[in-house]
């Protein structure tokens, strides 16, 4: 044991004070001429020994109290052998990197890996030699400098450490290490060290080569210590995916969701119940997965319905395990009450079945005629001049089928409509004037591709089929699963070759290709809206698509994709800021949020004013789950978004020990780079002050003081 303030030990001389006071004190004496002295003498003799014993006890207690207080202020501390790799006898300048990714939330039943790492950091700090300083970074897929520069005030560091909390982010250690190295390079401290406390998840070492390189380049100046927390290869079951399939989210319509559950453990998991709930309410649907093999994933389809239109969240969950963060997964979505579509036919024909919008009309409302009124999707059929009307914004989607040309006003209205958030789906046909389509400033600005002259399929086969696999676009990704059928059997006898716009501003994507690689359907976002361009007809004149089984689901997926609120921006990665445009009338109103980790509304700011609309912004999205944003006193959320953690974080497999050991081995010589191999120090030779023991001493002093007060009070009572 040693003392950090040894000079204070001179204060032990103060022990003589109670003795001196006891011996020298002359209390004011009262004199009484007393008759009953005989009785008094007998009492005094009888009590003399007890009174003396009480005096001595109080004297000893007071002396002990003084001694304890002096020891307390001398700051006694245990001596620690500093010969270990982590701490040298001299003062260090260190950076501590603490992994705060989702996987650090794995619990051993008592504490999480994150808590364990915090305790370890506390131990490291207590072992630093006097004069050492340290910075503290939180590392996940971003680096957060909690204590950005090394400080000697470990009290602040400990307080900051205690206030840190887990995120649901992924992990990448390299950026944090790089920043720590850069910081230490600029510091002037002698012994420089980096401590990395991580669960050593495989994903954290994605840049292992760069880490090795960094360590190699700096091993003479900086020692790196990699400390692994948590056991290796623990089992974990996770909801690794949640997707809405196909249909549009509409009021009272069953919405099918595909829930993927992954088993990251090393043993087969039996009977996993999966539940699906909306808006945090009771589960609406559930299913049981019989068995999931180690390392495998299983998908179950569950349904959910919504009673009210607006923004909602869906949460899929499985029973809790030791990593709670990935036992549920949420998505946010916009539920519509009704979707209105306008079908513009290029030609007129008395035979309804021969009209350009016949197949579209029936595919969009795939129910019996008597049920059409109750169906959420409404269709209106019109001619080109309909587009001259300024009431286009009453429709969510507008289809053009075999339209030759638009009026200039119609084209301008259409452009405004799309930029304001509407969806345009264009099916060309025999009457289509490609020159107009390619040259009209409004229409060409909307279309994601230029149309070439209509081309016959190859003469030998007479038709051209669509691609049969490897669908990249979300709309067609469903058909990657053979159980959903195939788009490869869609045939086109004639089509307009599409040439995607090559400019940088364009976000044009191929939705599906022909088997020969030419684009069959392309799409792009324009303003807040979206435009799909098909290369062939919406009738059976050139293409078999209208009578193909995939036509209805394809149209539904296009409708869903085009009307999904802010176009997929409702689902974010942890830490990604959320922004959402609303009517400008809300600008300046209070913005509150209900987070997934807090059941109460918290006011987080105000709605920001914009040029044409107001903006909702919220940036504290470190925790996965649904977030509801409220404006003013609204009871219903103005918008809901969901934060989804990286499914890879659920894989708790650790980097092979050999890799970590090699990093440690490479780091060890750095402490004494040029010195000859040194013998391990003998016990006691490199002892440095370790943990202070003021706390038990303070408790003892307090107890002693209380005992002294109690005894003095008791002794002073009449006896």
């Amino acid at each position: 044991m040693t003392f950090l303030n040894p000079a204070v030990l001179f204060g032990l001389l103060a022990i003589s004070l109670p003795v001196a006071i006891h011996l020298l004190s002359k209390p004011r004496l009262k004199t009484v001429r007393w008759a009953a002295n005989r009785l008094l003498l007998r009492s005094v003799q009888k009590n003399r020994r007890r009174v003396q014993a009480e005096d001595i006890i109080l004297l000893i207690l007071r002396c002990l109290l003084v001694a304890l207080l002096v020891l307390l202020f001398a700051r006694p501390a245990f001596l620690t052998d500093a010969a270990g790799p982590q701490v040298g006898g001299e003062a260090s300048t260190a950076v501590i990197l603490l992994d705060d990714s989702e996987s650090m939330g794995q619990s051993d039943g008592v504490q999480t890996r994150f808590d364990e790492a915090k305790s370890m950091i506390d131990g490291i700090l207590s072992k630093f030699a006097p004069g050492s300083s340290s910075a503290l970074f939180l590392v996940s897929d971003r680096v957060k400098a909690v204590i950005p520069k090394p400080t000697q005030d470990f009290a602040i560091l400990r307080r900051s450490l205690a206030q840190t909390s887990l995120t649901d982010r992924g992990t990448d250690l390299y950026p944090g290490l790089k920043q720590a190295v850069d910081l230490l390079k600029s510091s002037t401290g002698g012994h420089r060290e980096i401590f990395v406390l991580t669960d050593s998840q495989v994903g954290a070492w994605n840049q292992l080569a760069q880490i090795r390189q960094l360590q190699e380049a700096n091993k003479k100046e900086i020692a790196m210590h990699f400390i692994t927390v948590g056991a290796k290869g623990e089992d974990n079951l996770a909801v690794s995916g949640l997707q809405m399939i196909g249909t549009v989210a509409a009021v009272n319509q069953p919405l099918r969701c595909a829930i993927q559950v992954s088993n990251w453990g090393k043993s087969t998991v039996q009977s996993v119940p999966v539940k699906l709930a909306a808006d945090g309410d009771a589960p609406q649907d559930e299913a049981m997965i019989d068995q999931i093999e180690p390392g495998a994933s299983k998908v179950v389809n569950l349904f959910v319905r919504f009673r009210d239109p607006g923004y909602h969240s869906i949460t899929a969950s499985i029973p809790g395990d030791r990593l709670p963060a990935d036992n549920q997964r949420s998505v946010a979505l916009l539920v519509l009450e009704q979707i209105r579509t306008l079908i513009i036919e290029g030609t007129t024909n008395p035979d309804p079945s021969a009209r350009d919008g016949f197949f579209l009309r029936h595919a969009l409302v795939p129910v019996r005629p008597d049920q059409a009124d109750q169906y959420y999707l409404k269709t209106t059929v019109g001619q080109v001049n309909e587009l001259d009307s300024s009431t286009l914004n009453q429709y969510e989607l507008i289809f053009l089928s075999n339209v030759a040309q638009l009026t200039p006003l119609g084209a301008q209205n259409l452009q405004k409509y799309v930029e304001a958030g509407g969806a345009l789906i264009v099916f060309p046909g025999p009457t289509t004037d490609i020159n107009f389509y390619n040259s009209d400033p409004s229409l060409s600005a909307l279309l994601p591709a230029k149309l070439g002259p209509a081309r016959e399929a190859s003469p030998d086969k007479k038709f051209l089929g669509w691609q049969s696999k490897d669908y990249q676009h979300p709309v067609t990704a469903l058909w990657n699963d053979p159980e959903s059928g195939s788009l490869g059997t869609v045939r086109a006898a004639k089509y307009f070759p599409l040439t995607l716009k090559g400019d940088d501003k364009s976000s044009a994507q191929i939705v599906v290709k022909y088997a020969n690689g030419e684009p069959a359907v392309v799409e792009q976002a324009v303003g807040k809206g979206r435009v799909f361009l098909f290369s062939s007809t919406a009738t059976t004149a050139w293409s078999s698509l209208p009578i193909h089984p995939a036509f209805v689901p394809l149209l539904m997926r296009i409708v869903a994709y085009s009307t999904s609120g802010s176009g997929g921006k409702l689902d974010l990665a942890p830490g990604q800021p959320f922004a959402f445009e609303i009517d400008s009338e809300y600008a300046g109103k209070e913005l509150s949020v209900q987070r997934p980790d807090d059941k109460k509304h918290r006011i987080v700011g105000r709605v920001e004013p914009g040029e044409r609309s107001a903006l909702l912004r919220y940036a504290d999205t470190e925790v996965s789950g649904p977030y509801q944003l409220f404006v003013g006193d609204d009871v219903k959320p103005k918008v809901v978004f969901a934060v989804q953690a990286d499914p890879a974080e659920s894989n708790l497999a650790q980097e092979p020990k050999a890799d970590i050991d090699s990093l440690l081995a490479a780091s060890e010589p750095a402490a004494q780079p040029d010195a000859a191999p040194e013998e391990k120090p003998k016990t006691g030779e490199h002892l440095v002050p370790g943990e202070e023991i003021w706390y038990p001493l303070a408790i003892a002093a307090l107890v002693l003081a209380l005992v002294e007060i109690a005894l003095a009070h008791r002794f002073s009572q009449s006896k």
Partner: protein
Amino acid sequence: MAEPDSQSYLDPLAISRGESLGILARNVVEGYRVGEHRSPFKGFAIEFAQHREYTIGDDPRHLDWKVLGRTDRYYIKQYEQDTNFVVHLLLDGSESMNYGSGKITKLHYAKALAACMAYLVLLQRDAVAVGVFDTQTREYIPRTDNLGKIHHIMSRLAAFEATEKTSLGVAMADLSRMAKAKGIVIVLSDLFDDEEGFERGLQQLRFSGHEVIVFHVLDPDEIDFPFKGRVQFIGLEGAATVETNPADIRKSYLEEMNAMRLRMRLACDRTGSHYVLANTGTSLAETLSGYLVFRHQVCAR
């Protein structure tokens, strides 16, 4: 503490209460004239006492002729004589009686008590004798039944100053020898003396036929020991000086004091004497009337 003048010994309230109650002789006393108290001598006075069979030598004048006429038996009529008594007031004049926590000392309280009782006794035409003692009898006022002598008694009491140690046993033994007729002996003392000597003295007085009443005069400080802080107790009557913290020994002292009072009471009980605690914190009237009421009840049985 200044000694009050002799007139202040007579407390009007005590006198007025005592006057109505009077001091009755609990035992039969031998008086020298007819008075209020029963005499051991059966005579031929007014009050019939009993019949006795005639024996040779009896005066035939006292034969009850009526009984003889009816029964032919010879009976003598006997009558009870009332007599007066002598009260011996024995006052402790030792130095320990000089203690007083309030306005008056124990000695002054005892003097006042003695004066009041002397007045009451003289008032009912009984006789009183007063003795003040320490190691020996210092003052002695012989027996008198003259009420006019009360001033003389009080001035003698006022003039006395306590300086010596006590020897209560000796004083009581002297009195038992000196008193010729049975009477009432009233002892007023703090009893800080040899306890065995005190009990011996009581026995001697009782053996001589006296009725004995002991007024144990104590100061409230001596009963409650209320001192605080560090106190030096200088012993009266040459006792050692004690310096102590009273709170440390209070409980023990009170046990000693209560034990001593109990021993004194038991000594009185054993000898058939009355023990009366005279707390100087209590008014003289209360102490005196309290005892006289008690005595009245006892004598009435």
